[in-house]
């Protein structure tokens, strides 16, 4: 059992071609420029908080953690008041790639499925988008840790 995979017939390939000709494509250059600018802006905000926390005497390591938490809180709050998706529509990868995207992908389904209950809705669906990142992220981290433990100790 697995995902169905069908080899396309000649007629289907021809139709795919026709569809491609007719279908509009995303404006790649505009999208890239916008993603660069919005993504850069997220980094600037992060940098501002980093400087602020350093100024307040927080250690370098805790500053980095603090900045991540701050960005997550801001992104989740913007999701809650319905602003995040309006920014992200233009920002694209600019808001998806930084930790803001992760925060939004957890907050959005949590809000959406609240109508199905706090346990059976929000809690169940909360990681429906971010879940794969957590699963494969922690799996990759464990694998990396194992390799490091076996071969790189003391190096």
């Amino acid at each position: 059992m697995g995902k169905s995979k069908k080899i396309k017939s000649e007629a289907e390939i021809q139709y795919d071609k026709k569809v491609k000709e007719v279908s509009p494509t995303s404006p790649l250059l505009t999208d890239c420029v916008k993603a660069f600018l919005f993504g850069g802006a997220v980094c600037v905000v992060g940098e501002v908080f980093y400087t602020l926390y350093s100024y307040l005497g927080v250690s370098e390591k805790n500053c980095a953690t603090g900045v991540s938490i701050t960005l997550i809180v801001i992104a989740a709050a913007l999701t809650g008041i319905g602003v995040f998706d309006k920014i992200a529509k233009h920002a694209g990868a600019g808001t998806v790639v930084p930790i803001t995207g992760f925060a939004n992908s957890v907050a959005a389904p949590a809000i959406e499925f609240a109508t199905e209950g706090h346990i059976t809705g929000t809690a169940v669906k909360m990681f429906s988008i971010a879940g794969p990142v957590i699963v494969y992220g922690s799996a990759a981290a464990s694998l990396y840790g194992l390799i490091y433990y076996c071969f790189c100790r003391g190096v």
Partner: protein
Amino acid sequence: MKNKRVNDLSSMPVIIGAAGVAGQTEGKGPLSERFDYVFADDGMGENTWESAEKALCRKAFETATAKSGLAYEDIGIVFGGDLVNQCTPSAFGLKDYGIPFAGLFGACSTFALGLALAAVFVDRKIFRFAAAEASSHFCSAEKQFRMPLEYGGQRPPTAQRTVSGAGACILGQKENGVCVKKVMFGRICDRGVTDATNFGAVMAPAAADTAAVFLQETKTSPTDYGMILTGDLGKVGSELMTQLLLEENKIDISGVQTDCGNIIYDDVCQDVHCGGSGCGCSASVVASHIYRKIADGETDNVLFIGTGALMSPLSSLQGDTVPGIAHAVLIGRKGNCV
């Protein structure tokens, strides 16, 4: 013996009551004045998006019934459907009227399917009065098929916006009025498209197939119709349907074809990419705008082809293709309409 695909309804059942209702965004579009009712808020005063769709369904059905002058118990059967799991908005929305109910799933072609069935039931005198109803809601459809509303993603330019709207028609025998003359049920067409963000490409072959068979069997040409009205092909699908018919059947529908999904939103001001879609798209447009156009004598013989993409979120994840379907209903004037 080969079945005849086009059914002539010799008694020409009349649409004795019709109503199209819409949500907030649709109400800001070019057809705002044409709808029978526009909800000021997409929540429609309900607690969930699914209940909001119920409200759409009820409003359309109640308005259509009131216009027909019938009592609910006069209606023999109502064919209703939507896009939500197990058609709950239609079933829950229509449960309090005490009318026999047949739930339909024809994806976005549901309204054409229901209208065709109701017309056949009245023509064959199974019931004196029968009704068709279909609804969709942008938020319940996004929740079911796509991403949560607040998720910050970008929609591809081929995507269409699910219309928050509903339409209902009550059919019965009458001397004059806007009537259903012929119906044809569509067959499932699969050209191997797997992109669930390009429904125009999925449904265009089905629409072209239905249009070609209808025109060939009735020995008519596109110019014999006031309008060839597709349900929700959008810009991409309309272009593909026109090309397919021209290349494969030598039929030119350009200039005659209109799409409900293309006229419900303002292309420039409303950021909806390739137009509207969903059961409520053709339902709300046909039951209000198009019905009035025919009743007012602005057009006649509208070949309405409701289009649907047969898929579920599960089938898409499993890598299945998305087949399309299209049902045709010929709507025109009977006697002295006005």
